[in-house]
């Protein structure tokens, strides 16, 4: 295969991939972030103790996280069809991506918020902060560097998931590598390698950006 024939296919795959990870990441955070906050503040010794609620939420999150993504996609077919109108294509794959990534994001956010010193939260309580003020003035800003780092990991994970979406007719760089590359025989292997290399490059980019941002935003570093 010549570069001239690979390039447009790569471009198409890249755009499809971006078309999946951007909305999927965004929606996963819109759902996962509040869930992560809830997981933290409803713990037994935290600022809004609701141990039963916490246990149920934790169980749901764990359940969704423990189902292999490929199986989850298949299980969700009927729901996906109902919500998105179709089960094929990049648009449809955003739904299972979110269902799988939101609980992951919730755990990542949870672990970032748990890093915030208990004493600082206590000081905020002693100053008469409301629960909501502690969340947006203490927990989130104090955990910001770690949240950014976590976001880089989450997006990377979502990117890895998008590659699997191709297995069920999703599209994106994963599909470029498998259906347009691997499955069409030796002649098309260069396309598979090129698409994979592009995926690797994207992961690197996300992680480098994430860790640079983390460092720059962290005022605990002198």
């Amino acid at each position, binding site marked *: 295969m010549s570069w001239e024939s690979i390039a447009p296919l790569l471009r198409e795959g890249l755009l499809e991939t971006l078309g999946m990870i951007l909305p999927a990441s965004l929606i996963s955070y819109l759902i996962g972030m509040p869930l992560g906050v809830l997981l933290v503040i409803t713990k037994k010794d935290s600022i809004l103790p609701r141990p039963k609620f916490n246990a149920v939420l934790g169980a749901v999150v764990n359940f969704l996280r423990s189902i292999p993504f490929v199986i989850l996609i298949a299980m969700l077919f009927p729901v996906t069809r109902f919500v998105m109108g179709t089960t094929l294509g990049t648009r449809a794959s955003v739904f299972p991506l979110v269902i799988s990534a939101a609980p992951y994001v919730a755990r990542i956010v949870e672990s970032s918020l748990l890093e915030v010193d208990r*004493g*600082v939260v206590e000081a905020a*309580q*002693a*100053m008469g*902060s409301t629960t909501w003020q502690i969340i947006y003035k203490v927990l989130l800003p104090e955990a910001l560097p770690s949240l950014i780092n976590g976001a880089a990991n989450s997006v990377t994970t979502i990117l890895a998931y998008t590659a699997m979406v191709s297995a069920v007719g999703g599209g994106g760089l994963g599909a470029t590598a498998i259906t347009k590359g691997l499955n069409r025989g030796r002649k098309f292997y260069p396309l598979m390698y090129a698409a994979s290399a592009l995926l690797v490059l994207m992961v690197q980019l996300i992680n480098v950006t994430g860790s640079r941002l983390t460092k720059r935003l962290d005022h605990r570093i002198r």
Partner: protein
Amino acid sequence: MSAAAPLIEIRDLKKVYTNAGGEVVALNGISLSIGRGEIYGIIGMSGAGKSTLIRCLNRLDTPTSGTVLIDGQDVLRMDKRTLLQTRRKVSMIFQQFNLLMQRTVAGNVRYPLELAGVPRKQADERVRELLQIVDLGDKHDSYPVQLSGGQRQRVAIARALASDPEVLLCDEATSALDPMTTQSILALLQDINRRLGITIVLITHEMAVIRQVCTRVAILDGGSIAEEGTVDDVFIHTRSVAGKRLFGILANEDEPEENADIPALRVIFDSADIGRPVISSLIRKFQIDVNILAADVKRVGGKQYGQMLIEAPADENLKRQIIDDLTRQGLKVKEVYPK
């Protein structure tokens, strides 16, 4: 010192923790009155319950039973809204400072003003004022990580003062600081108490802290108050065992004895009222050399406390005579043998 109506009144406060091992009684019926304008010290060994006690005053900890009145208001039974308002009038500083690490010094001090809804411009002015009070005017834009421990505690104090509190609770506020820094923080607290009329309640395990700044003191032991009174009174006429042990004036008789590698006599001065020097009289009376192996004796209020380890004579008869002589003088003597 205590005014007619105390600012803080604690009545029969109990706190029982339930854990896997059963019930732990942290506070066992504490009653205290703290007057307006006082610097009230609560001292005790670790595990005595002092941290639990101070945390019950602003309901960071919920007691099992009892009453806490601040300015006549029942802290433990007030609704959430009133509690938040009360907490703004009862500030707190901590051993580990507990500053927001992602905010500048100014941002930290501004925090309580944000809670109170003070307009930004007015808040900024107040922040500068507060930083002047704690002598950190030049650290306005620094981050806590760039400050020393003492400076961090000053920021915490400025932050605590921002809401114009009536009470400042200090939870081991100097325990993480070196002695010099402790001095300057204590001086600052005293200054705040005098100039701003803020009542201070502090807990500590260091007797020097109490002695230096407090007007009154309560000694906490095993969740109960062992004794309470003005600092002078409690120090000079220490009555409780906990107090004596805390001030290091009660010989600890269970102390491990590995420091005696030769046969020795442990002479215990427990509030002994002796006018003359014990050791030199021993030397004269028995015509012997007295080898002092270790000594830790303090004079408090004209009495001697502590203990001394002296080499025992090889002659068994002489040793008996010495023990008899010291015992007659009101000292306790124990024979110590190397292991």
